[in-house]
């Protein structure tokens, strides 16, 4: 029979193993990310805004964010219709 300090260590070790096992199981059961859901949140205030070049709706012009750097601030609104 295990008693005293040895016993406590054994219990602690078993708890650690059980916790790891539970976490692993939970990870496996985690719901899959909704298709088309949110993207990872990568930016924070103070970061350099990633540059982009996008076309206007009529396709006639390409606009880059960097073209405003040093000239004027820019408000960006991301969205869709639905």
């Amino acid at each position, binding site marked *: 029979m295990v008693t005293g300090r040895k016993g406590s260590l054994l219990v602690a070790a078993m708890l650690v193993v059980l916790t790891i096992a539970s976490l692993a199981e939970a990870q496996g059961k985690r719901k899959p990310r909704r298709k088309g859901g949110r993207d990872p949140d990568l930016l924070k205030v103070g970061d*350099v805004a*990633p540059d982009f070049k*996008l076309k206007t709706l009529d396709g006639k012009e390409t606009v880059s964010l960097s073209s405003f750097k040093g000239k004027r601030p820019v408000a960006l609104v991301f969205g*869709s219709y639905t």
Partner: protein
Amino acid sequence: MVYIREAHPTDGWQIGSNVRDRVLFKQPKSVAERTAVAQTMCTKLKIDLPCLLDGLDNKVGKAYSGWPDRLYFVGVDGKIIYKGGPGPRGFRPADLSASIEKYLPTIKATGKKSKHAVRGLAVWTGDGACVPAFVAFGCRNGLKIP
């Protein structure tokens, strides 16, 4: 404005309010389809501001985690001054407006208020500085502040 992938298309996560309001669109699969939906949006919502189209790879939307909708304010130095939360709860034009209002005096001593009729967003613009609201390209399409 940067038009990104649809939030609640009919072939995706459709929501009841869109059915009620007859805002029914499939997720665009081509540039032509995306352009058509974006144009319809601008017309129906009376958005008379410059609108840019994210690519089918959704690269820009992903980089900014813009889906389903989100607001940013970028300073003259190219750094993010304001980043709103994800919409709809985090989409707060008043917060963006406050951020712009706070920032502009740092680059211009005076300012005039310019109100744009998109979701109640009011933008303060520096005198002659022009804040391109909704991603703009210079002071055009009615954005120029006298």
